[in-house]
């Protein structure tokens, strides 16, 4: 039994301590928003925030998050930055299949929380761990800039 704080609530998960946070969320807590894409920290579909840091839940054992604050897509909209990111995503119709988008939004929100006006390089650095096989990258970049209150494209 591991106790952690998910989206502001203390919860106990009845799974072995080596179970990755991803499966603890999905199979233990029945929270489906965080997705499984690769299981090897290669695709970003499972991105959550652990104490505010974008973290790949598929390679983070439950034991490593005991007592920590985990935020998932289900609650990211509770923060102002998260809400703006989700709104920009909706305004620009970023999603296609949508399977990667929880992770994209979690990474984008972590970026803007730290870097409110990111450069294109900042966006590349923060987002290149998140694969989108549907190729929604053009819109992801635009949506991040919009959420940051920046013009759609760099003047440069």
């Amino acid at each position, binding site marked *: 039994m591991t106790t952690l704080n998910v989206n502001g609530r203390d919860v106990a998960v009845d799974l072995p301590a080596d*179970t990755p946070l991803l499966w603890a969320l999905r199979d233990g807590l029945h929270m489906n928003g965080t*997705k499984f894409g690769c299981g090897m920290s290669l*695709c970003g579909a499972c991105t959550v925030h652990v104490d505010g840091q974008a973290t790949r839940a598929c390679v983070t054992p439950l034991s490593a998050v005991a007592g920590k604050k985990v935020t998932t897509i289900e609650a990211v909209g509770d923060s102002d930055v998260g809400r703006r990111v989700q709104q920009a995503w*909706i305004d620009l119709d970023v999603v*296609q299949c949508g399977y990667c988008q929880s992770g994209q939004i979690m990474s984008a929100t972590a970026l803007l929380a730290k870097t409110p006006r990111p450069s294109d390089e900042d966006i590349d650095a923060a987002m290149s761990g998140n694969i989108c096989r549907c190729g929604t990258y053009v*819109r992801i970049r635009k949506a991040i800039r919009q959420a940051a209150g920046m013009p759609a494209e760099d003047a440069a």
Partner: protein
Amino acid sequence: MNFRIENVLQTSRRGFLKGSAGLALAVVAPGMAHAGTGAGPGIAGSSMVDGDFSPNAFLRIGTDNSVTVVSKHLEMGQGVYTGLATLVAEELDADWAQVKVEGAPADAGRYSNLFWKAQGTGGSTAIANSFEQMRRAGATARAMLVSAAAAQWKVPASQITVKSGVVSHAASGRKATFGELSEAAAKVAVPADVTLKDPKDFTLIGHSAPRKDSLAKTTGRATFTQDIKLPGMLTAVVAHAPRFGGKVKSVDDKAARAVAGVTDVVTIDNGVAVLARDYWTAKKGRDALKIVWDESSAYHGSSDAILADYRELAKTPGLVARKDGDAEAALARAGKVYEAEFAFPFLAHASMEPLNCVMKLDADGCEVWNGEQLHTGDQYALAKALSLKPEQVKLNMVYAGGSFGRRANPQSDYLLETAQIAKAIKGRVPVKLVWSREDDMRGGYYRPLYLHRVRAALDAKGMPVAWQHRIVGQSIIAGSPFEPMLVKDGIDATSVEGASTLPYAIPNLNVDLHTTNATVKVPVQWWRSVGSTHTGFSSEVFIDELAAAAGKDPVAYRLAMLAKHPRHAGVLKLAADKAGWGKPLAASADGKRGRGVAVHESFNSFVAEVVEVTVHKDGEFTVDRVVCAVDCGVAVNPDVIKAQMEGGIGYALAAALSGAITLKDGLVEQSNFNDYTVLRINQMPKVEVHIVKSAAKPTGVGEPGVPPLAPALVNALHAATGKRIRALPIGEQLQTT
């Protein structure tokens, strides 16, 4: 009801008579003209469903004023839920905000793809086959709402108007919502015919209605197969045979069963499944299995050896797929013959959601939750495997986290795998099969490996007089239920499409084909844009080579041969114009710039792309910008079309840069996104999409954005460096050649 079942049975009988394993799906071959659509099935027959007004199978109007459109097609990212809802809402004059979409169950009688006579999604047909049918569904409901209002208000129906979900009578000032009229409308006779709007009156079609799935997919609430949870459900993780065709000889499952939480270990055709309440436990159990494989009929081929064999085969003539004039004779007469060999690797679809399937088996039958792309085929395959009647197989279609063709498996592979597991535990509890990324990457059903050899000769003016195009590779269709429809005289239409349909005016044009299924035993399947993934590349790169040999501008050279193909010419001109073709590219301090172009038709849509690159001194390059022009007939939702072009470009670029599944002694060398690298955001170019205004019937957009990208890129690299790449992926060829 009877009508529906009869329909299905007829189809099935036809299928089994042809001797195929499953249902024969009547498919319109790529490039063939559209079958007539008409109203199609599913329109007649109004009813009340759970208190909602259900004027036909595609639409329900609730007393709460909600309009629910039932999508017969799978939403896998291509925007079809939004597109189909647009068509219904347009003719219904609904308010876009009141419209919801849900997936249709498997029911070929009502929900067949009108181009296929079976239910399924693919070949970029969703909007094309439904365009009239969905509009009619909306118009029928509208007429019934108007009749109900006219009767209630005792005014002539002709004086009633409908706008944004409100039915009004101006003279009396009466108004009602759809919800308020729904009960009365349900009692109105379904009109025999309805008039569809004049396109000039469209308020939704052509106006980029916002996607219906954005909110759910932005908040993590959209339900994919991976998200289905049923009471008592177990997760199954499978140890698959390492080589295609391998089987289990013996298994030592002691250690697996010792993993706390593992409930079952069962042997299936091509592996051993371990079941547990959660994925991680099941995976631990799977990893603890000790299996001895029976490889007596396993395939041990290697990509290198396959390619070498294909190269030999390409020296001899194959079966003729197209013969205009006599290319060989013209080549023999020519002073100089231009020749090139093109090579293409196996490609995995690598959708973001690894394959999975949920199944519940009980005395009544089987119920499935799946990103369901081939309803009818899967329904019949499952019925056969489980000794059920097709109507006992209930398929629930949920969102698919991508597919790119993979979820439309003609052998129903992962569904049958789930069925075997469910059967092995005697349906005790529902089962969710979950493939890991590695299972997905190594699970086969790839875009086949191909080799092309193209030879050509030019006339005195530098224009081609002879073009001989030879293709060597596996047939996707052979051995599948689609074979009777798509393989003619030994030629699989999908192996040669794009080459056999080359639009350029060349007097002596031959295309021939060697099909290698007898020797190469790798499971293969359609991959976003199918034959055009390779034929578009070889044709458009080689044409560029000929333009260079003739000293002509690549755009002008192509246009000179496209007089009879105005839609090809149209997109080519538009893309070239918008890209500033002919004007010098801005120089870069970082390296040499280059621009390349390609144009290709697939699934009756026409796309041209201009790619701009910068090649750095070390041979590394960046793809800076892609300008795309598309002609897909009426643009139902321009923003979705743009998204599909952007996405198609990204998907194609990933494959062009580094996509390759390679086999060595029958083992797939790749496993995950570390060694099957895909496009990341830092590699994504700027993309500009221009849509040709057209009144032609709408055609597909899911796939046609893919084929022109790789040839345009390679042509751009040539323009920058003078080096011509003919084998995909590009990889490090610029550094090493």
